């Protein structure tokens, strides 16, 4: 029983790996196959009737997600049509100024936050597991939770337009306009979209872990489908781009709710800080939207060219390079704010440099098409349209990246044209190409070739009729975001052309939507792999099965369906890994990050109500403060925490019935993992990177005020109590130490000592929270931005410490009730990891409140 002494998380796989050809050629008896299929079918059964909505499987959640995002896009599109009608003639009075401002604010916000980013996540949730031959995402309930959050938040935000209460300060929400705005519009924007951003980050974490840890055995990083690479890059970008906005939203809402003057220049605040935080998010956001669409093109192009993609590593590297460079562009949205020329120059330079990796990606596609035998299919037609439009948008992008030229066209219709060219070419067209390409994958029916061509030509011509003239409209002096314009500027006829074009686009979308939604019951199911693709998603069986892949293959090539001819047959027979579900549990295989060696059988979670409840309460916690109803918000937040604890307690890191399990092909894999072996640990690590970025944004804020404002902190200002800050920092450090020690003690079998650490931890945390609160209590945050910033840092720390405290108690409870033992200690590893970040946050906060201001 040597095994029982080593922690379950440290068990090594046993048996044969990699499999040999002889093993793969062994037949599977028919009765075994039938029994296995029955087991799998039972384990992966979609809930029936009204319980359908408790499904968490990626194929269901991904579908809901996609349709919801598509619906929000149609709504935002209708808003655009209303705006185009208003702009049909000069001094038109169809729509009032106030209503128009709500419309363009909501059009931009919805397209960005409710369509473009969620659409990437939706499509990825839907198809990434299939690309990787996995059965599901690593955390299905997290996907479901993210979806319900998105739905609730999205309906709340977009619904406000029907009540004439929508935000109306532009999708960029510049203070002081947005801080002064009467009504609840700005609060809806800030709280509703923060809520959705949290959901987006959750999805990003899951997608990153999925691409890193849920690849099929043998699929090394150098043979991963390009889509998975893009998921990694984009997920990473979301992790570093969204948190600055969340930090900005946090400050903004504190100003709106409690009058803490972060952006009010009369009390030392600075509206420029918001612009920095917003655009540090806002520019990477453009690439977050664009790269996944390139990824779709990267899946369509090889199929069309009938050959592997040319320059695989070039494309991967371009994606990574674009990801990096995109964080050096944000000030090009602020070229007219009066920053020194030389600062603008840096951002002009980076904005030009980012064109190079983008160009490499496009040229790699063209090169693949040149080197291949092209069969022009409908998805390819959309890709061609995308290229025509995107290159035009990219070239105007090169123009506006030159700062002095931007001084002329910034905030004019030239920019409206430019951004729609990049977004239609870089997002809408490739996504529609993806819908035509992947529709047979997820619905097992083809879309209509004829309707598809109609939709293409309507949208393509309509788009150019609508947006090409806008370049000239802008050059003739029409600013953006005007609800009307005087006659005599020579822009009347241009606006009329644009309006006509907008309705042609709408007609195209109507055709497209009809093609998707029309009943297809009379239509035959597709043949397997209708496009002749080479990647794993086309191995799925017809008719549809809910288990994804029948068995998880051993993959050594980039286009296994082309290069490993016997593979599909072996998969179907269940010759590969995890062909069975004997315990009736949903399982997928976890592999190593670089070489994808099989490491573990991961039990994934099944249908649940708790995710819906958790999302509902989380929604309440964000939505009630919009109406300044704080008590119900706090109640909702508490219930949300309870729901999430219940969900984690009942379905994650449970000690398994057996430590090892046959995974097929003579390989035995552990069923439990802790620490860096566990997907949950990776998820915590990745989430906390994002969280640390948000915290770094707050710290950046302090230094920003110091550079931009000679009186920060104001001379003679009262500082936080040094003693209390020091005490708080010491208490948090001790709590951190206690948590880390508990992990070691627990693993060493000294359960009593570990529990003592988990009792001391929360007490020390609580003491630290009290000390840090009292240290700033004498400062009045409404008087000046300096005390407000100190309070904000305090609130941030206290909020995180509360989470840390709950986690310590969760582990203590786990230890007391046998969920957490010396052998099964994954929870404590994850909590310790969280505490590493929290400990650092506490130390930095201590320095920022107690030391730094005294030295400034």
């Amino acid at each position, binding site marked *: 029983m040597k095994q029982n002494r080593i922690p379950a998380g440290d068990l090594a796989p046993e048996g044969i790996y990699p499999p040999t050809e002889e093993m793969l050629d062994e037949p599977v008896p028919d009765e075994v196959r039938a029994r296995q299929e029955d087991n799998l079918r039972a384990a992966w059964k979609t809930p029936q009737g009204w319980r359908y909505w408790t499904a968490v499987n990626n194929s269901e959640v991904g579908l809901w997600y996609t349709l919801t995002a598509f619906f929000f896009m149609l709504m935002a599109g209708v808003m655009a049509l209303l705006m185009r009608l208003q702009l049909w003639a000069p001094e038109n009075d169809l729509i009032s100024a106030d209503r128009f401002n709500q419309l363009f604010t909501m059009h931009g916000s919805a397209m960005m936050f409710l369509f473009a980013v969620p659409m990437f996540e939706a499509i990825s949730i839907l198809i990434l597991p299939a690309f990787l031959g996995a059965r599901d995402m690593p955390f299905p309930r997290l996907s479901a939770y993210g979806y319900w959050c998105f739905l609730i938040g999205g309906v709340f935000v977009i619904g406000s337009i029907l009540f004439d209460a929508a935000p109306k300060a532009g999708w960029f929400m510049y203070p002081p306009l947005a801080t002064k705005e009467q009504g609840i519009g700005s609060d809806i924007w800030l709280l509703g979209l923060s809520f959705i951003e949290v959901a987006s980050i959750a999805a990003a974490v899951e997608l990153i872990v999925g691409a890193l840890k849920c690849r099929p055995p043998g699929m090394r990083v150098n043979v991963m489908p390009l889509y998975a690479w893009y998921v990694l890059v984009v997920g990473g970008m979301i992790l570093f781009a969204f948190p600055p906005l969340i930090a900005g939203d946090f400050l903004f809402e504190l100003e709106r709710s409690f009058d803490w003057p972060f952006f009010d220049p009369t009390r030392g605040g600075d509206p420029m800080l918001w612009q920095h935080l917003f655009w540090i998010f806002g520019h990477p956001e453009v690439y977050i939207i664009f790269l996944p669409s390139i990824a779709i093109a990267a899946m369509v192009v090889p199929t069309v060219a009938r050959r592997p993609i040319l320059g695989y590593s070039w494309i991967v590297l371009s994606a990574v390079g674009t990801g990096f460079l995109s964080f050096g562009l944000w000030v090009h949205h602020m070229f007219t704010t009066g920053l*020194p020329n*030389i600062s603008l120059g840096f951002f002009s330079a980076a904005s030009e440099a980012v064109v190079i990796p983008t160009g490499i990606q496009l040229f790699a596609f063209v090169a693949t098409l040149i080197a291949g035998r092209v069969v022009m299919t409908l998805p390819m037609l959309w890709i061609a349209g995308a290229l025509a439009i995107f290159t035009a948008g990219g070239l105007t992008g090169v123009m506006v990246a030159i700062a002095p030229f931007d001084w002329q066209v910034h905030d004019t219709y030239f920019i409206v044209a430019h951004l729609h060219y990049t977004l239609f070419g870089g997002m809408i067209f490739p996504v529609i190409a993806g819908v035509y390409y992947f529709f047979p994958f997820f619905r097992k029916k083809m879309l209509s070739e004829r309707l598809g061509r109609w939709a293409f030509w309507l949208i393509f011509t309509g788009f150019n009729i609508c947006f090409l003239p806008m370049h000239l409209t802008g050059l003739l002096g029409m600013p953006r975001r005007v609800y009307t314009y005087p006659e005599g500027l020579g822009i009347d006829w241009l606006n009329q052309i644009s309006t006509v074009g907008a309705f042609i686009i709408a007609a195209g979308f109507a055709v497209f939507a009809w093609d998707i939604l029309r009943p297809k019951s009379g239509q035959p199911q597709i043949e397997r792999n209708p496009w002749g693709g080479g990647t794993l998603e086309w191995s799925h069986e017809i008719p549809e099965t809910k288990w994804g892949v029948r068995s998880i293959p051993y993959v050594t*090539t980039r286009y296994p369906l082309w290069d490993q001819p016997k593979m599909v047959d072996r998969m179907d027979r269940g010759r590969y890994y995890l062909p069975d579900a004997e315990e009736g549990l949903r399982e997928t295989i976890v592999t190593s990050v*670089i070489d994808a060696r099989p490491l573990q059988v991961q039990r994934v979670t099944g249908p649940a109500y708790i995710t819906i409840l958790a999302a509902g309460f989380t929604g309440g916690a964000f939505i009630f403060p919009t109406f300044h109803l704080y008590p119900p918000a706090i109640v909702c937040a508490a219930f949300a925490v309870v729901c999430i604890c219940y969900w984690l307690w009942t379905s994650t890191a449970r000690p398994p019935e057996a430590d090892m399990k046959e995974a097929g092909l003579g390989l035995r894999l552990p069923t439990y993992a802790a620490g860096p072996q566990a997907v949950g640990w990776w998820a915590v690590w990745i989430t906390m990177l994002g969280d640390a970025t948000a915290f770094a944004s707050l710290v950046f804020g302090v230094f920003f005020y110091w*550079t931009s404002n000679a009186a920060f902190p104001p001379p003679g200002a009262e500082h936080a109590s040094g003693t209390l800050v020091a005490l708080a920092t010491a208490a948090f450090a001790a709590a951190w130490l206690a948590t880390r020690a508990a992990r070691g003690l627990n693993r060493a079998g000294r359960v009593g000592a570990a529990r003592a650490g988990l009792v001391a931890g929360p007490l020390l945390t609580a003491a630290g929270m009290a000390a840090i609160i009292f240290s700033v209590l004498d400062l009045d945050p409404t008087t000046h931005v300096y005390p407000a910033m100190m309070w904000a840092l305090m609130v941030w720390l206290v909020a995180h410490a509360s989470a840390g405290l709950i986690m310590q108690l969760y582990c203590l409870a786990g230890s007391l009730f046998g969920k957490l033992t010396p052998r099964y200690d994954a929870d404590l590893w994850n909590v310790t990891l969280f505490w590493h970040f929290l400990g650092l946050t506490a130390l930095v906060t201590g320095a920022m409140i107690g030391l730094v201001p005294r030295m400034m």
Partner: protein
Amino acid sequence: MAEPGRDDRQPTAHEDEREFAEERESLWRITLGPTIWAGHFLICYASVSVYCFRLERMFGMEGLRLALGALTLACLAAIGWIGWRAFRRWEVWGTGEFSNPVGNAEDRHQFLGHAGFLLALVSFIGVVFDALPLLLIGSCR
């Protein structure tokens, strides 16, 4: 039973740590180029901001521009060295596809080497571009 180039090693309990240790150098190379670009970019932007908002009256800009120029040269040299090492690791006249039907560690190794080289190239161009404003614009206006 073993095919040529086939990688028969068993996965271990701490497989991820092992693989990362094996590719530590390649992974460094991949991230180092862009990280140097990012560092150069941030230092240039931050020091110019602090100078223009806080220190403009205390000393002339030439000193700052010279210092940042020296930093640029150092960054270019570092990226050049990384790129050169990556270039030598990678079989230049190979197929450039870095995959084969049985899958082996060498392909992955070469792929990461190539990756490092390309990212060094893009970072190099990025640093050169970012140095142009230092050369062409000499004041805080």
